[in-house]
């Protein structure tokens, strides 16, 4: 599983190591991320799995590419 943090999220996460061995779905992924990096909750993010944003809980497979997308304001 590949984890990509975009924009400002990359700074927040830095070099934190996430143990994803027990992660089977996106809700569990969120739990792991927030536990290791609680600051993420203040920045909020969307999870995209294999290029599609997933707002519900979905299964995660070994080869999935998961991206965390930061919020932004337009203009």
């Amino acid at each position, binding site marked *: *599983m*590949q*984890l*990509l*943090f*975009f*924009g*400002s*999220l*990359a*700074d927040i*996460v*830095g070099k*934190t*190591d*996430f143990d*994803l061995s027990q992660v089977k779905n996106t809700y569990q992924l969120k739990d792991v991320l927030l536990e290791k990096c609680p600051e993420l*909750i*203040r*920045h*909020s993010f*969307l999870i995209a799995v294999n*290029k*599609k*944003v997933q*707002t*519900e809980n979905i299964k995660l497979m*070994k*080869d999935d*590419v998961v*991206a965390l*997308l*930061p*919020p*932004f*304001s*337009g*203009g």
Partner: protein
Amino acid sequence: MLKDSFGRIHDYLRISLLDKCNFRCLYCLPHSPHNKNGFQSKHESSLMTADEIERFADSFVKLGVKKIRLTGGEPLIRKDAKEIILRLSKFPVELTLTTNGSQIDEFIDTFQEAGIKSVNVSLDSLEAATFHKLTGRNEFEKVFGNIHLLLDKQFHVKVNVVVMNGINETDIRGFIEWTKNAPVHIRFIEFMPFPGNHWQPDKLITYKEILESIGDHYPEIEKLNDGVHDTAKKFRVKGHAGTFAVISTMSEPFCGGCNRMRLTADGKMRNCLFSKIETDLLTSLRAGNDITPLIVECLFGKHYMLGGHNEQQWATSHSESKERTMLAIGG
């Protein structure tokens, strides 16, 4: 010609004229008990003057910019907005703007004199009560009237609708109905809520859900052609005068075809909405320095998408092709 490190030509500049607005949209500039404006607005002396905006435009146009959009805050409440519009109209660019529509009646003549052909108006509801709730202002009739004024004067009008679950998703039908006889071009924008804008719905309404809800009432929908730099996926209900589109900022980010650069009201350049850094052009301009190298350098630092990523590997084997798949998002 301005290119980033991925070879993308950047010929579209968005200039924010100021960070003030006469509306108080819930998701943008809501009321705050601490500060009447809801945030700390920049002091006037730190904003670009009309002269400076013109000089920046000159530099960017020499580097190949062909389109300039004025934004804000609300660009038309800047006191010298007319002067800025007329000055920028002298450049060989397509000049346009995004506005909340409340001031348009005072600017029609200026728009015509400046040769502006297209205007984007933000409007999130066709119900006056919802409009008031969303913007904090009782100006629906004014904005709606101004949009029709623009249409009467043959302007191309795009209406930007931010779709929010639990707030205005029921307005979608009304907007589509509007396109039946009015040649308006509605764009539904996916909205992602986040802490700080005082509003937390359950979930984002995606492009697919928007299309489905439209399809329920209007079964005959034609897909229109999208330009390579377009962020909107365009459609028309068969027989309607206007069109609609969905800008799927969240569910399908479209970074690959980006050609946009931004200049903030205090003269800082941003190469991406998600960019963490800004390049201060104004200070250099005021110091009499050539800003062209700064522009080029800022753009060259642009990430491929969404302000760049930090990759965390979990799998023991990592394949290049997977990363490229992710980077190919958008288009």
